[in-house]
């Protein structure tokens, strides 16, 4: 469903992505792993159309996203969970959830979101930035589910979460995958990654240098961990 070819991205003089190619199929969970500063967040921002300095081809279901602005990409079904959690201070939790339009075939009704995330229901009238970091992470994930996005672009959704919540995020990702939603997941936690994903793209020097299957990641775990500097 998503195909990226020859993607180059830069900040001023500094090239961050040189030649990225990757694909994500419907209902597939694919991770993007790489060292700090490898350009993972930049790649997601390029896909969302938020990064001006980029060249290359990005297609969604065969449609060239080319120069489509970010809001059009969202309306085609891209759901971004940003690395900073993207909570609005000036919106309540409910407003944070209902702000984006429904963009996919099965947006979650608010009631289902609250059933899945009872803590958000409890805090529904609070300003979103009053939530704890973990709760904000849940909110960002819940928001793209409510949009009914067909391809989730999740930037380290488990970062800084307690183990129980990490497991919860894993459950949810498996649940949406089973509905046919695709997920491109930036993830440093390899155990978690192999638990939810099918394939893993290793990003280094501005390229996807290797694409690994779960077994390969498990076999080479210590090598990869050293490489990632964890």
């Amino acid at each position, binding site marked *: 469903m998503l195909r990226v070819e020859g993607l180059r991205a830069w900040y001023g003089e500094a090239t961050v992505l040189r030649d990225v190619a990757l694909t994500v199929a419907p209902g597939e969970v694919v991770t993007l792993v790489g060292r700090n500063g490898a350009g993972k967040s930049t790649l997601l921002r390029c896909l969302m159309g*938020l990064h001006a300095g980029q060249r290359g081809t990005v297609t969604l279901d065969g449609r060239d996203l080319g120069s489509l*602005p*970010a*809001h059009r990409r969202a309306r085609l079904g891209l759901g971004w969970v940003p690395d900073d959690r993207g909570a609005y201070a000036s919106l309540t939790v409910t407003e944070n959830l209902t*702000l*984006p*339009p429904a963009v996919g075939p099965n947006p979650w009704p608010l009631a289902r979101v609250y059933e899945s995330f009872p803590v958000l229901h409890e805090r529904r009238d609070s300003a979103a930035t009053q939530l704890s970091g973990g709760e904000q992470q849940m909110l960002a994930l819940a928001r793209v589910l409510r949009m009914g996005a067909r391809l989730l672009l999740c930037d380290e959704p488990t970062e800084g979460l307690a183990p129980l919540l990490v497991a919860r995020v894993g459950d949810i990702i498996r649940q949406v995958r089973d509905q046919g939603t695709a997920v491109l997941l930036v993830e440093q936690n390899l155990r978690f990654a192999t638990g939810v994903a099918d394939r893993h793209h290793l990003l280094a020097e501005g390229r996807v240098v290797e694409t690994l299957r779960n077994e390969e990641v498990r076999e080479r775990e210590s090598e990869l961990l050293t490489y990632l500097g964890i």
Partner: protein
Amino acid sequence: MSSFLQHTFDGLVSGAFLALLALGLAVIFGMLRVVNFAHGAFYMLGAVGTYLLLTEFGVPFWWALLIVPVALGVLGMGVERAFVHRLARLDPLYNFLLTFGLTLVLQDLVKLRYGTQSSPYATPSALAGTVDFGLFDFPAYRVFVLAFAVVACVAVWWLLGHTRVGMVVRAATERPELSRALGIDVGRWVMPVFGFGIALAGVAGVLAAPMRAVNPLMGADLVIVVFAVVVIGGLGSIFGSVAAGFGIGLVQAWGESYLDQWPIVAQTSVFVIMAAVLLWRPAGLFGREEAPA
């Protein structure tokens, strides 16, 4: 005591103008990140327009209160599309310069046609008398201005806080990039929000016509104070700009009455307060530090 209440009331009335103007400036800044220097000129156009409607077309005050803000809102939208929009991708300083230039053009156009003399505008007859508050009488028109401004501010606050449009504007104001990534066409809201801010300046201008001297330069000094108000309240903060508007109105009125031996102190008090607030809280009293994209 009675003179204190008198000064306080006068302060609230001049605060009402500051609040309306600061509110429009804050709404515009929030959405566009543009400091609209021309805000004072639009306020002036509001007052001049009210005067001209009456003298040239016999349109009374109450109709002007409807027509002028709508017309200025439309004019504002046109200015946004024709000029402000073209500079959107550049440093915001360019738009500051643009609106500064626009101010000079608007002032001189009015000057060219009507000179710099102030024109009197009669208080609408329904509000000609005074209102008896027991101990005191206040001019009915000023009571009306205060009440109208308070209602307008509350209405804007409600609109922003409790409607879907308001929610979108808040989101786009706080984090424009994230909002676009969530499927909101932020660009679509820029023109109407700019027009709305200008319409608020127009409301202030209409209200000013019967009680302030109507002339091409009436907005020039005021806009400087309004900038100070917006900075004190916190750039882009709706509540902050309104609260600071009324607050500064009070400070000025008290300063003028009780520090009249030291006019310098009274006149600069606003800017001293602004400097102090900036040192203490750079984002203003009710402002938030800029969030990352």
